[in-house]
């Protein structure tokens, strides 16, 4: 008999004993004396066990996270019956019969919903219930006619497979929770040593039983490092908790919860620290810092826009302050995620959060913010770089909040394991560079839209000005700021570092343009009312050129790195996969911009137009390809 079967046998025996004891300890509750659900839920303080750790789907997480994810998976929303997910989780585990006929399995797919409503032989009362709640009960879903219908649908309409599988998975999760032989025995408990296997409660109970057997052959199968006395106390606490929960005995439940909260973290020395566990709860409560970050970036964006039109230098300083604060929160969000994931993988390198859509958007926005802030601080372009960066940061974090939390769409917002092919250093190089370039393309898009909007809303005399005076050429030849040598050294446009209003405080009316005829720079101090508009357009274009050149180069490197990774991973550097080809098309758009600027007089206008085109091609590549085309980058 191998170890697994032996442990299983022992665990069944113990579970039966536990169940028997449980049944003995749980006399049918007197209906009158039983507390109502609301009162019972209100009387409990679950915070003690909320921050306990467990392992689920190969990821270490708190009970709070597990409960939230489980409820969300079952119901497609964050709560069932408006109760705390942890309460719901325990209630399903201890009083499963209550949930059998509740319509809590959400049907998200409208087509499946209408197909289900049209199912022959469906009870009219059930039909109206499904129509009203857009959900079905476990009892209904697992009934034979519905299962036959689901199987038939899956065979006949391939497109319905995913939506049916989603409900099947929800039903499976609910069933697993409600059919545990002893409550909570499906959860994995922290092992005594880091890297060791996590075991479920029945296995630990079996281990406890092994300690009582004198057979040395059997004893060699014992799991080392566990304190059996403590396991016995935990087992007893869970059994009593189950019994008290069924009786709605809040005081007894609380006693056992407090007991578990004390005992479990001390079960093994490798238990995740309290700081880590509490941080995880806070991180989740704060929507993974997406919403706070989005608010701050939005404030920064508005302030940067105002500063671009205002003479008051203080507004720009406030905008930069907001950006720094937002970036700090953003960085904290990434760092926390990294730290939390590290406890599951055991490796800092393989936990870098850039493995799914949520993480790549988060990282992309972060790179955009960092680059935008550096450019803003170095070149002080009246907040144009800052506005572009904070726009990207704001939009990205809003998307990261909205998609999973409002539309309940899984984009990898929960920390979890990724497919093995992504565990490569090439991922970090390729994806980091690609997402960084996407952020820059987003910034370039804003500047392009801004330029076009301002250009076409400007008085006719602005449009009648020479094209050179509306593009970055207007800044060419201006004196270079001596105290910004770093900026000069890396200036993408030869004279860009010689930006106007270096000292700040001025408006665009005091900008300078070169006199190409004499080669001598002269101050352009037009008294015309249109001069600020002209200058703004020139500076928008100048900023855009800086950003698009960076984006172009970084995207080029990303594509090449992707090709090298594809060569070693898929056996070919270039396979005309939609993700590859649309990245190349985006790159070609920017290649066209660079050449268009060489041959056209309206270089700023064409740049703005093509930057918008490039942005939409990039957006299609990043998001659209995943939904509309079939390819190898399904996780990207």
């Amino acid at each position, binding site marked *: 008999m191998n170890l697994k079967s032996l442990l299983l046998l022992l665990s069944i025996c113990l579970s039966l004993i536990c169940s028997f004891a449980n049944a003995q300890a749980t006399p049918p509750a007197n209906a009158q004396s039983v507390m109502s659900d609301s009162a019972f839920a209100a009387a409990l303080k679950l915070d003690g066990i909320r921050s306990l750790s467990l392992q689920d789907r190969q990821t270490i997480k708190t009970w709070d996270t597990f409960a939230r994810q489980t409820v969300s998976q079952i119901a497609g929303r964050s709560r069932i019956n408006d109760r705390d997910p942890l309460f719901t989780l325990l209630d399903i585990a201890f009083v499963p019969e209550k949930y059998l006929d509740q319509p809590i399995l959400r049907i998200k797919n409208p087509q499946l919903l209408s197909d289900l409503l049209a199912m022959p032989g469906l009870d009219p009362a059930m039909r109206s219930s499904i129509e009203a709640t857009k959900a079905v009960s476990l009892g209904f879903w697992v009934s034979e006619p519905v299962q036959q219908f689901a199987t038939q649908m899956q065979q006949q309409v391939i497109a319905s497979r995913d939506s049916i599988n989603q409900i099947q998975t929800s039903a499976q999760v609910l069933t697993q929770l409600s059919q545990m032989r002893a409550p909570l025995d499906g959860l994995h408990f922290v092992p005594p040593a880091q890297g060791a296997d996590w075991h479920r409660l029945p296995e630990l109970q079996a281990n406890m039983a092994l300690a009582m057997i004198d057979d040395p052959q059997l004893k060699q199968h014992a799991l080392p490092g566990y304190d059996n006395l403590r396991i016995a106390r935990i087992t007893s606490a869970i059994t009593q908790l189950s019994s008290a929960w069924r009786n709605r005995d809040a005081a007894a439940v609380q006693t056992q919860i407090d007991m578990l909260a004390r005992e479990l973290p001390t079960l093994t020395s490798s238990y995740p620290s309290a700081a880590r566990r509490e941080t995880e709860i806070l991180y989740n409560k704060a929507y993974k810092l997406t919403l706070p970050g989005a608010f701050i970036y939005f404030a920064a964006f508005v302030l940067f826009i105002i500063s671009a039109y205002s003479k008051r230098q203080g507004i720009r300083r406030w905008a930069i302050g907001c950006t720094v604060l937002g970036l700090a929160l953003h960085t904290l969000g990434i760092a926390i995620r990294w730290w939390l994931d590290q406890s599951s993988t055991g490796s800092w390198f393989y936990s870098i959060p850039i493995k799914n859509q949520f993480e790549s958007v988060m990282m992309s926005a972060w790179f955009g913010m960092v680059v935008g802030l550096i450019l803003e601080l170095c070149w002080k372009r009246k907040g144009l770089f800052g506005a572009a960066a904070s726009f990207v940061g704001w939009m990205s974090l809003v998307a990261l909040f909205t998609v999973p939390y409002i539309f309940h769409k899984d984009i990898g917002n929960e920390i979890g394991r990724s497919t093995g092919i992504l565990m490569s250093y090439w991922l970090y190089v390729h994806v980091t560079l690609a997402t960084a370039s996407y952020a820059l393309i987003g910034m370039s898009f804003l500047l392009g839209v801004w330029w076009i909007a301002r250009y076409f809303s400007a008085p006719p005399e602005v449009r009648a000005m020479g094209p050179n005076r509306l593009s970055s050429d207007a800044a060419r030849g201006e004196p270079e700021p001596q105290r910004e040598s770093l900026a000069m050294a890396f200036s993408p446009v030869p004279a860009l570092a010689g930006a106007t209003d270096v000292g700040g405080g001025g408006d665009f009316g005091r900008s300078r343009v070169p006199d190409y005829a004499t080669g001598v720079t002269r101050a352009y101090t037009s008294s015309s009312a249109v001069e600020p508009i002209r200058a703004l357009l020139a500076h928008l274009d100048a900023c855009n050129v800086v950003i698009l050149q960076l984006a172009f180069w970084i995207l080029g490197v990303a594509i090449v790195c992707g090709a090298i990774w594809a060569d070693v991973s898929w*056996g070919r550097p270039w396979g005309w996969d939609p993700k590859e080809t649309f990245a190349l098309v985006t790159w070609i758009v920017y290649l066209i911009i660079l050449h268009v600027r060489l041959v056209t007089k309206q270089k700023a206008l064409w740049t703005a137009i093509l930057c918008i085109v490039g942005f939409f091609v990039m957006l299609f590549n990043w998001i659209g390809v995943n939904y509309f085309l079939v390819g190898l980058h399904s996780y990207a």
Partner: protein
Amino acid sequence: MPALRWIFRHTLNSVPSGIVLLVLIGLYIAIGSGAAGLRERLEMDELLFFNWWPFKVLSVLLVINLMTVTITRIPLTPTRYGVWSIHLGIILLLISLGAYYNQKVEGLVPLVRGQTATAFYDRWERALYIRTPFAQNSVPLEGLPRFSAYDEPLGNAHYLDRSPLRNLEPQLTVFDSESRQGHVTTLAEAIGAAQPVTFDIIGYYPYGETQGWVVDSAAGNTGLKLTNPKGNYTWIVASESADAVTAISDRAFVEHRHLDTAADVEIATAAAKKLHKLTVKVGEASQEIAVEPGKTYEIAGYSIAVEEFKPQWPLSSGQGRADALTMVVTHKSADGSATQFRRMVLAGRESSGDAQTDFELGVEGAGPFGKRKRDGVLDANITIAYTYTDPTRLLPTMDGVTAKYVLFTAGDSPGITSLRVSTRQPIQIEKTTDATLRLNVDAPAGLLDSSPASEPVAIAIERNDHLRHSDTVAIVSPERRDREVARAGGGQMVRVKVSSGDWSQIVPVGFDQFALQNAFTGPNIKVPGAQVPFQLMLGNLRRALPVAVRLESFEAMPYAGGDLSGSSMMREFRSNITFLDPSTNLATRASASLNEPAFFKRGGGLLSPGESWIFSQASWNPQNLDFTALQVGNRPFVTNMIVACGMILGGLLYTFYLKPIIIRRMKANALRLAQARKKPQRTQSDEPQELVTSA
């Protein structure tokens, strides 16, 4: 000449025309990748579309434009090194890409632990596989469409009217068991057909499924139409092996047999009554009787109630199986008392110890079958030997099947004879003299209808003497199409016309990704006069590997907390392989894991890049960890492409970020130089003036 110069200046030597080319290339790529429907209308996958002549023309024009513009318009000065590098990089990349796709082959090599593979299945090209009992081979189907269905009923079969798909005459390598030598021969020779056997691909379906039909045909055969009370019907035709039998339920089925004469039917039905023969010895007296389950026989004071026939009954000794018959034996003694026991007798075991086993009845706790007598028998006075003979295979012998209705027709008689044979009940025979019969079927669940029924169902049977089986390929409806399966080729079907002399047969042939590794699912094709049949299968084309590969072991490594079941997320897969190079007889160990492929290189030197092959980990089977599939492909010109990319990115870096510094420094130097020159010049010019003045 001026016109040519104008064309040269405004096309090849023009930046705007270069931009136009870039726009066209961008659009081409976007359409080819984004508008898959359009590409598929042209019957092209990504590789074909991006290897098509319009794309090649655009690429060549861009290369010429870049070369011309670079040489004529961009002087090779330090400030323009970056542009030169970018342009040369793009030219090199485009040329290398063209060469790469010209020479690139890739595919999958399925590997089983301990076995050596010498070939792989191409990713794009397909082939028609032929398998006889002694040999197998394939014929490449170059130009076979991929995305749309083509067939005569669809009105577009002319698309398939091209040489690689018509008049295919496959050759097979047949191994002589004595000489252990293989020799190449034609299919006709391999199967013993008198005339050459050829194939024509007459239909292609990207999403197809076979549907068997029975159709009226003047030159057809006799068949029966079974209709249930709901009006649903099916046909059974004796001459079509695939259609001769239909299931009534999971425990009974109906079979049609067509014999030459009514007398043959009589013989066959009479034989059914002699399937089970018992030789009963009571004391010294012996008697041989034919028995049927469900009937009772009286022999020398013993009453033998035959209960059930148990085909292939597993022996209690654990050594094999035997056909068995169970019966309840009752012995009435002179005083009127009766003893009863159950006996199981095994067919053909007269002399062996376990030929008959007795079971005591009515023993508490023994179960309904009775308590087995372990040594000897309960009544040694009676010995029963059992013979089971069923040369025409009338009785059902499958596990769980208890009854079979054999419907006989005869060539010289219009009637139908129904023979019900059961493992538990006596034979039942019903006859009609006309072409219809009404049969009460007592195990009706599932007959022609999935709805269960508890009552016997009356089946109307109608005879037709002009029937022929016809297989057609139906297009799978769009909502039932599985694109994931289709990506690996699943669902494809071809209709093949097999011809030999005047004879021909149209066969639907399905697809298997690893055709030669698995059993063929198509029907056996028997060419008239041939000694053996053969089968066909559509699959990906097998190509020879540059080196033999043996899978030593395969490892799947889950993340912490997972296991090797398919439900756990895997951290890594690794195939440990050995390369067995036939040219050097060298064995080299290597391993291919997710992001670390195994490389096989041969040749190469200073001037020749040699041969480079990559083996990447591609797939696994959670149910069978001894199996894996590696992606294999050659890597022509990959180094050139990497160099080209380096030139482009280096050039961009130079142009964007180093050139401005160089220009600034050059300007500063020029200014310094100008100032330095200006001072002495002034001095020189002033001095002479002064001198002149003074002079």
